[in-house]
């Protein structure tokens, strides 16, 4: 049923339909209302047999989920920013232990200075953890992604944590129409979790224990292989979802106007507005297309090579910075298409810490690149000139 709901609720309701066994979280803006909604459902007896545990910190929340997941439970948490960073020690472990934890990261900037607003610096810091990352464009996609995340993560070919990344505020706090899923449909799409191995007193096992040099490396190779298999598993799951839900969100990337000379590449909630901007610029005669990266981990290497093979200019809009180099999406994209495309790469860091990205701002970036007013390389866009105090 289509209803106007808040982003938080679109996630919480979908989590409920996935019948989690254990939910454990610590509040942090702009995530709090997701777990508040789940806590209310728990208090109202709507979560069946699920346990809802209030943690003393994100570190504690992630730790409890590792325990619960290792014991064979389907688990959920949500966090962002400093909370995600505090979880990171545990989450690297969760990936190494091959636990299919599903978490929602409501993307928010990192301190310092303290910012509660949206960018992608937090999830990018988890890039190398062995956690799958998908970025969603709107609250319907967030809603739809939760059952798919469980189905991919729990597939025995994969068994890795799955992080659904949704822009804080822009999505979480927005009321918009969402077609809410039905329990029967989710039940038939997502079978109960059957762990490949789990902790029990009947057959004691140890997870994540000591691995000396003669064995450690094999575990890490296995993680990489799981990530590579995840690419295919995701495509199958995405396709099945399109069939059963009637909403086709595409594969690892989506490409608007594939024959264009110039491409804009972006992730997350800005994609919707970019689609409009690109359409308008095409009406002005610019040969510009749009690539939305949905899956950041595993990275869509082959898809980008194919999409950009004849491109002349590629504009990457990053919502975070790897200080000392440039935006991580741009770094990854360059590395992926190296030797397969001769396109010039324009790497721009935009919208950090919630800096708004109005339509005209986005259009100007594309127009300037098209008209040769920009040079390939890295630059920040949309900041005010200032004088540094320290030097």
């Amino acid at each position: 049923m289509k209803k106007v709901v808040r982003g938080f609720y679109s996630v919480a309701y979908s989590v409920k339909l996935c019948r989690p066994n254990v939910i454990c979280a610590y509040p942090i803006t702009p995530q709090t209302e997701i777990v508040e909604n789940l806590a209310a459902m728990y208090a109202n007896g709507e979560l069946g047999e699920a346990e809802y545990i209030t943690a003393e910190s994100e570190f504690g929340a992630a730790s409890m989920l590792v325990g619960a997941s290792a014991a064979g439970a389907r688990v959920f948490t949500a966090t962002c920013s400093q909370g995600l960073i505090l979880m990171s020690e545990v989450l690297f472990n969760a990936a190494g232990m091959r636990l299919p934890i599903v978490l929602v990261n409501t993307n928010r900037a990192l301190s310092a200075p303290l910012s509660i607003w949206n960018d992608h610096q937090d999830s990018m810091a988890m890039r190398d953890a062995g956690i799958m990352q998908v970025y969603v464009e709107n609250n319907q996609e967030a809603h739809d992604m939760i059952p798919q995340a469980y189905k991919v993560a729990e597939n025995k070919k994969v068994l890795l944590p799955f992080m659904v990344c949704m822009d804080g505020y822009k999505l979480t706090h927005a009321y918009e129409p969402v077609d809410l899923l039905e329990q029967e449909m989710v039940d038939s799409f997502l079978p109960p979790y059957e762990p490949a191995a789990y902790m029990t007193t009947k057959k004691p096992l140890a997870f994540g224990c000591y691995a000396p040099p003669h064995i450690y490396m094999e575990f890490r190779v296995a993680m990489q292989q799981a990530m590579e298999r995840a690419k295919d598993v995701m495509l199958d799951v995405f396709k099945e979802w399109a069939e059963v839900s009637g909403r086709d969100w595409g594969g690892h990337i989506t490409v608007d106007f594939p024959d264009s000379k110039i491409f804009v590449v972006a992730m997350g909630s800005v994609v919707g507005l970019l689609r409009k901007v690109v359409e308008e610029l095409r009406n002005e005669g610019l040969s510009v297309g749009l690539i939305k990266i949905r899956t950041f981990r595993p990275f869509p290497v082959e898809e980008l090579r194919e999409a950009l093979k004849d491109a002349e200019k590629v504009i990457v809009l990053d919502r975070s910075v790897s200080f000392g180099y440039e935006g991580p999406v741009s770094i990854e994209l360059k590395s992926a298409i190296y030797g397969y495309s001769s396109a010039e790469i324009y790497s721009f860091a935009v919208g950090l810490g919630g800096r708004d990205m109005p339509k005209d701002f986005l259009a100007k970036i594309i127009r300037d690149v098209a008209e040769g007013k920009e040079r390939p390389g890295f630059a920040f866009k949309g900041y005010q000139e200032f004088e540094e105090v320290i030097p």
Partner: protein
Amino acid sequence: MVKILIEVRFHGRGGQGAVTAADLLAVAGFKEGYYTLSFPMFGAEKRGTPVVSFLRISDEPIVARDEVYNPDYVVVLDPTVMETVNVVSGLKKGGMLIANYPKSSEDLKKKVKADEMGIKVATINATKMAMEVLGRPITNTAMVGAFGGATRLISLETLVEVVKEWFKGELAEKNAKLVEEAYRYMMEVCRNED
């Protein structure tokens, strides 16, 4: 089909429900068959500090999530906000300022230089109305009613229905009453304007 996109900016102070006002209208607009999107511009959300929220109403799916810079309507929940914030900034020519204001529309028109900007102004003493009905100076539902009455985009019946779903018990009844009073008052004000 004529493509419409109506953009609204709400100004209030933390605690008055400027965010909820936009959200209520998003829910109501959808019930009337529009696509809607509402979202707040969050600051440090303290009681009493100026708060801004946004609403888009369209007959096609809304993809723009940037802030509203050139609104068709500006709704002001607290008259004192106008002392520090230029609420009519970017308001479209022909657009309308709908304000909770204790004095006349004429008075506010002069203050915001409405004629120079080519904008319309409609005022309502929503604080007084809210005090009478709710006993508290929370003006969001009154201004939701005022927006409905001024724009006629959303019917009174739908607004009352949404407010009754949103609030519970006595609060639902009181807020529904407030919406109705403000709606009818503003409809009258705007009829006299035309």
